[in-house]
């Protein structure tokens, strides 16, 4: 339309009249009228629902509904900033697909609306029957790093103290288990010694196995600003893909997937060979070991000789000179900080990869001082606080303590007021074993008959899906969620969940920080908090005494559960005794453990006298030498040392061959989160990244005669996807990448991924598989923004 003076005048006058009369000009006008921000009745403090950064938010409420989001400028995680996902949470909360009633699948295969009593009675009866017929371990709970701490703790208590069963695991097994095992084996205790505050002091960043810019964008802003303020700060990125994260790097270390272990070893060799290591630190604070014997530094150097940079360059495709440069910068910076995520953890050698990064810090003394820390990033908002710290995994008890330890079991039995011997000393199944063991009542090969799945979507997110779908379909499956998903398609009972801002609760992010979200609004329809659901099932199964927080007032129930939890760990190194609900409510920044009292400020650095209150805790005080300024007190040998591990080299479980000549790696894109069940329902986000695709290097595309947009089959030994091609130089030749959020079956990459697991952590190798590519046709529009909307739709 041509804009004439007359038409402009008419439009302006019409607009002015509309505004004067209070008529919204378009749908969005109501939410954004004032020039000074969104119009709301109140702002309620909370935490972002997405990644593990733990961004503080304020939830804008108007007329009893959430209508806006904004960052909390006082939060020490994000200082007020949000990414595209966090700023749009209100855009999907009231999506018409929200589940608002309990639903039970009928004989005809369709769901029928049920009352809460009907649904809970059915679940309790089925589980009780299974316990009687097949034993206490025939029913499992599969939780999530997106449930609140109170929820994960409550289900953990119900299973381990109530049923005497350790058949409880959660999706952090699929993302963080290798980091947990890495911290445990190196330091004797899970979770980082430092915090995000190290970013502002670091002089060298080593980012590996992490596309921080897309997966943790708000945290990446802090790294970006650090570099901007001090350009002498070095950033090294070690990744098979040259992502946006690498754009600000001084050095990109390209590696074939799975070969980065050799680069880490080679960097260690260069450091020791050139005498850039900190011999005094190693002597005083570390132990050189293969897990059994103790060795000398000379032994370690000899062990590392096999990782000479020139040799490693041939295995990895990483230039030798760049390995040497990275080693020098890391060792000589004065304060080096490593950050990593799924690229290291989701590997069949994930624990070793973690150990080897810790090694670099220990041989150079880059720990226990500002800016120097090996820091593992988490992908979910409450994987650390909710699942790791409450011990809601099949081998742990609260405080992230192993349940095989008789003293820990005895303490927890006393705390939970259950008879001695109630907690089974044998760990339950890990996630992948659980799903491999799920099946029908009449299938004698499948010991697991029933399962509750909450706030996660394994029917899309498990690797090698073809192997696991039937088990989920055959077993009695209860799913708690807010939207229909691939997993609800396999469920027998679907329970409508309250969203985080409809119930409140605590999330603990990557940096040991617990933050409280207040309930801001009521849930829609009959949706209920998980905590209420757990209490109702407990009551019906004779375990009501264990879970007395069964009231409708969700914040009251949350507080009771939190207080119960923190009382069980108050004498451990993960104590949150000082983080009372009152304090968490009043605080705008949350509390970092260890925090033994209400007057303690929380802990910036663990293992450092003067910062870590554990040095003065009664249970530890006498075990730590009075003159020790740095002491790794979780050391099982009581020497206060961390382990520098001798590790061999091992590549991926599956590497390319003649039949499957390409490496496949998968990951996130900035707009979408996990399986897209929330972000896929926001139009702006869906538009930016509607569908999965396969990134192919131009050299490979040319050889295979694939052009941009062509449809390509990505085939592994386990499954196939059909995806549009993006011809880009992001990945190395021979490496292809597919994002993981798409819900359309032909584009769900987990059908193709490998379910080989790390022997220690049991975390699967999502990040590496061998595939072949076949062009199957020209361009096709697949930007359909596909989401599962109909609860009765078939898998």
């Amino acid at each position, binding site marked *: 339309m041509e804009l004439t003076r007359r038409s402009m005048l008419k439009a302006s006058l019409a607009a002015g009249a509309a505004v004067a009369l209070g008529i919204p000009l378009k*749908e969005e*006008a109501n939410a954004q009228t004032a020039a000074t921000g969104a119009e709301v009745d109140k702002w309620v403090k909370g935490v972002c629902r997405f990644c593990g950064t733990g961004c503080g938010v304020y939830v804008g409420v108007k007329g009893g509904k959430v209508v*806006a*989001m904004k960052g909390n400028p006082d939060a020490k995680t994000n200082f*007020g900033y949000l990414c595209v996902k966090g700023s749009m949470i209100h855009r999907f909360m009231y999506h018409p697909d929200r589940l608002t009633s309990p639903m039970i699948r009928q004989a005809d295969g369709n769901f029928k609306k049920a009352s809460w009593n009907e649904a809970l009675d059915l679940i309790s009866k089925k589980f009780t029957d299974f316990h009687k017929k097949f034993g206490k371990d025939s029913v499992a709970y599969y939780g999530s790093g997106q449930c609140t701490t109170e929820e994960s703790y409550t289900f953990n208590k119900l299973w381990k103290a109530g049923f005497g069963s350790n058949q409880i695991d959660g999706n952090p097994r699929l993302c963080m288990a290798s980091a947990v095992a890495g911290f445990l084996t190196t330091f004797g205790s899970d979770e980082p010694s430092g915090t995000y505050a190290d970013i502002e002091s670091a002089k060298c960043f080593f980012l590996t196995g992490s596309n921080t810019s897309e997966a943790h*964008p708000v945290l990446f802003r802090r790294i970006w600003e650090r570099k901007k303020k001090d350009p002498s700060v070095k950033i090294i990125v070690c990744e098979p893909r040259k992502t946006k994260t690498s754009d600000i790097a001084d050095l990109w270390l390209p590696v074939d997937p799975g070969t980065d272990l050799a680069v880490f070893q080679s960097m260690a060799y260069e450091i020791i060979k050139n005498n850039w290591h900190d011999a005094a630190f190693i002597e005083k604070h570390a132990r050189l070991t293969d897990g059994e014997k103790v060795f000398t530094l000379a032994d370690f150097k000899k062990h590392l000789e096999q990782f000479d940079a020139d040799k490693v360059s041939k295995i990895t495709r990483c230039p030798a000179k760049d390995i040497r440069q990275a080693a020098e910068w890391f060792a000589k910076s004065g304060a080096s900080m490593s950050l990593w995520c799924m690229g290291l953890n989701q590997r069949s050698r994930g624990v070793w990869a973690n150990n080897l990064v810790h090694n670099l810090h220990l041989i150079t003394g880059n720990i226990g001082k500002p800016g120097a820390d090996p820091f593992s990033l988490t992908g979910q908002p409450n994987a650390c606080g909710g699942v790791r710290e409450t011990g809601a995994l099949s081998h742990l008890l609260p405080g992230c303590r192993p349940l095989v330890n008789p003293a820990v079991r005895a303490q927890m039995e006393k705390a939970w007021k259950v008879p001695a011997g109630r907690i089974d000393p044998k760990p339950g199944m890990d996630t992948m074993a659980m799903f491999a063991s799920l099946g029908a009542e009449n299938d004698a090969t499948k010991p697991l008959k029933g399962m509750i799945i909450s706030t996660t979507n394994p029917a899309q997110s498990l690797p090698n899906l073809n192997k696991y779908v039937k088990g989920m379909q055959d077993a009695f499956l209860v799913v708690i969620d807010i939207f229909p998903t691939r997993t609800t398609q396999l469920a027998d009972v679907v329970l409508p969940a309250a969203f985080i801002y409809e119930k409140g609760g605590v999330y603990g992010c990557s940096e040991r920080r617990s933050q409280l979200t207040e309930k801001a609004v009521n849930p829609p329809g009959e949706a209920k908090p998980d905590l209420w659901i757990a209490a109702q099932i407990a009551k019906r199964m004779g375990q009501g005494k264990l879970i007395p927080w069964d009231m409708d007032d969700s914040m009251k129930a949350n507080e009771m559960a939190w207080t119960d939890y923190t009382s069980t760990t108050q004498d451990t190194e993960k104590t949150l005794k000082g983080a009372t609900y009152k304090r968490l409510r009043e605080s705008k920044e949350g509390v970092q453990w260890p925090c033994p009292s209400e007057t303690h400020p929380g802990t910036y650095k663990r293992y450092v006298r003067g910062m870590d209150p554990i040095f003065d805790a009664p249970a530890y005080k006498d075990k730590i030498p009075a003159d020790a300024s740095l002491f790794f007190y979780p050391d099982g040998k009581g020497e206060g040392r961390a382990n520098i591990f001798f590790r061999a080299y091992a590549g991926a479980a599956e590497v390319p061959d003649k039949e499957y000549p390409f490496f496949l790696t998968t990951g996130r894109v900035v707009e979408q989160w996990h399986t897209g069940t929330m972000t896929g329902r926001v139009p702006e986000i869906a538009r930016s990244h509607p569908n999965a695709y396969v990134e192919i290097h131009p050299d490979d595309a040319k050889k295979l005669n694939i052009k941009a947009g062509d449809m390509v089959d990505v085939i592994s030994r386990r499954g196939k996807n059909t995806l549009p091609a993006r011809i880009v130089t992001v990945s190395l030749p021979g490496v292809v990448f597919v994002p993981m959020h798409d819900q359309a079956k032909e584009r769900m990459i987990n059908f193709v991924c490998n379910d080989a697991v790390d022997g220690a952590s049991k975390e699967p190798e999502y990040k590496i598989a061998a595939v072949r590519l076949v062009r199957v046709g020209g361009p096709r529009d697949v*930007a359909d923004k596909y989401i599962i909307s109909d609860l009765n739709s078939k898998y």
Partner: protein
Amino acid sequence: MFKTLIPVVIMLSFALFAFAADEHPDDMGNKDCITCHADGDAVSNPKVVAEYNQSIHSYSGVMCGSCHGDVANFSAKPPKAKCEPCHAEQIAKNKSTLPCEACHVVHTFAVHK
């Protein structure tokens, strides 16, 4: 007469930008913004994508739709409320009636022009 109307028209034009969602000039279909606004394309500012790609917003997860919305809530010139999720304090303190972009360079987002 026309001269006397000019200030009114200007004021009401500001009101239009502040209050109204815009009509995207073309059917957006299923296309991502970059499909049409890619570097070198003269649909709007031909430098817009290149500029944005160098900005802190592009590195920290603030995407086209974060500010410009989608079909139903499209803003050619995003109002202050669109900046609020990350810059609430600045908006609360700022008494100016001018849009943020009057001082902050669009897409490259330097602190001040």
